[in-house]
């Protein structure tokens, strides 16, 4: 079965979520991956959304962080204050799964501004839940599309960091921190290292034991496409 780069990214991101993991899910790419995981190999994955849905089990992709289906299918619905204070802050959540507008070589995330804060070139949406998701979850994964504008040498503004992401999944490969610097550790089938380097805003290091990601299986692709079709 042929597949797109975006599909490879979502499948790769879904694979890193294991059953019974508690995952604090950002909307967009992380939510797609997390719901794909729940619909394939990790049916007991616990999805927590900042809108107050604990253990959401949507059968389609939520259109927004406040999609009604999140509350309707959740184990429990709590207020936004409670989800941050009682559920995120004490370190109960295993994985924080975030997107990013910009990510730098040290794993710092920017979703605030491009350019100067007081006179920004581009005003981005801002922090949302990310700073505390990044610092309070046991580990953070980031999923984003691989472009030189997204993966930069140094972000213009540190919106969130925490311990830094343990894993970054892009549409070209996977990066992990090695000696404090995000390093290419896996590459998706059909992608070359040169391609990844060209799409990265710094001199990307490549792990000696670089592996090739397994291509999406037919089951994974079918599940992803069905999920998207229902959404």
């Amino acid at each position: 079965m042929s597949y797109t780069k975006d599909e490879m990214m979502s499948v790769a991101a879904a694979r890193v979520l294991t059953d019974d993991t508690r995952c604090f899910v950002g909307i967009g790419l992380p939510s797609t991956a997390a719901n794909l995981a729940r619909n394939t190999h990790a049916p007991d994955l616990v999805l927590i959304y900042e809108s107050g849905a604990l253990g959401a089990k949507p059968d389609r992709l939520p259109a927004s962080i406040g999609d009604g289906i999140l509350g309707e299918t959740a184990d429990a619905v709590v207020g936004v204050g409670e989800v941050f204070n009682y559920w995120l802050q004490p370190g109960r959540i295993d994985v924080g799964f975030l997107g990013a507008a910009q990510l730098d070589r040290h794993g710092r995330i920017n979703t605030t501004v491009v350019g100067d804060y007081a006179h920004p070139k581009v005003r981005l949406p801002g922090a949302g839940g990310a700073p505390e998701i990044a610092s309070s979850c046991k580990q953070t994964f980031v999923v984003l599309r691989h472009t030189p504008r997204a993966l930069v040498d140094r972000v213009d503004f540190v919106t969130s960091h925490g311990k830094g992401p343990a894993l970054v999944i892009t549409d070209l490969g996977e990066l992990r921190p090695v000696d404090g610097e995000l390093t290419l550790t896996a590459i998706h089938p059909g992608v070359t290292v040169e391609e990844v380097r060209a799409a990265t805003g710094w001199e990307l290091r490549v792990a000696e034991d670089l592996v090739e990601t397994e291509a999406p299986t037919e089951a994974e692709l079918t599940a992803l496409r069905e999920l998207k079709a229902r959404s």
Partner: protein
Amino acid sequence: MARIVSLADAVAELIHDGDSVALEGFTHLIPMAAGQEIIRQRRRDLTLIRMTPDIVYDRMIGAGCAGKLIFSWGGNPGVGSLHRFRDAVENGWPVPLEVEEHSHAGMANRYIAGASGLPFAVLRGYTGTDLPGVTSTIATVTCPFTGEELTAVPAVNPDVTVIHAQRADRKGNVQLWGLLGVQKEAVLAAKRSLVTVEEIVDELTPVPGAITLPGWAVTLVAEAPNGAHPSYAQGYTERDNDYYAQWDGISRDREAFGDWLAEVTA
């Protein structure tokens, strides 16, 4: 006991130029109709407070109602940018917009402190971020028992909070269910409050997952059917995802937005 009035009268009575105003509702139950009415009544120099400004504040900012925005995430959810918000921040159009920027955890705790009658809240927040460098309302506090240093944010106590709920009874008791957001805290933190509702009923039959705000904790209630559109009211209306996408087109340039505004304020 809350008084029940028309939306126009409620906005006229409660919201004045220069007020700090929180319209809350976390993606669900956004008080859009109230926002439109504030635009219609041409309020100016408001300090707008809201975790997720969304279309409701994009409109008010574009209409020139706001002098300042206190927020934590300003995007068009599921679509992209809030163009009127960006135009105000990037270009000062139609008027300059001061911003005071927090994280969701910080904003939620500011409402909690406000609702609790405390001057500040304590959290583990903003660690390793550049936010404390640009936002003066982020400080530290030391635990008197352990010596640990934590983050403090000041209470937010809006002059007026506006929320939208499913329904109220004739005494102004308000019933709200589905994703709950920070609406209870936002109402309790405010000096005055307005709740718009899908309908006013004789009796509030119990609904699983519902919370009730007693009428004696609310200032005014106004009926505003479909008052959350394009957001939704669980059990009453559906989210209009297409409109969120359409808004991108309306808000993207000043002229298209001007046409929209002229229609609203006509």
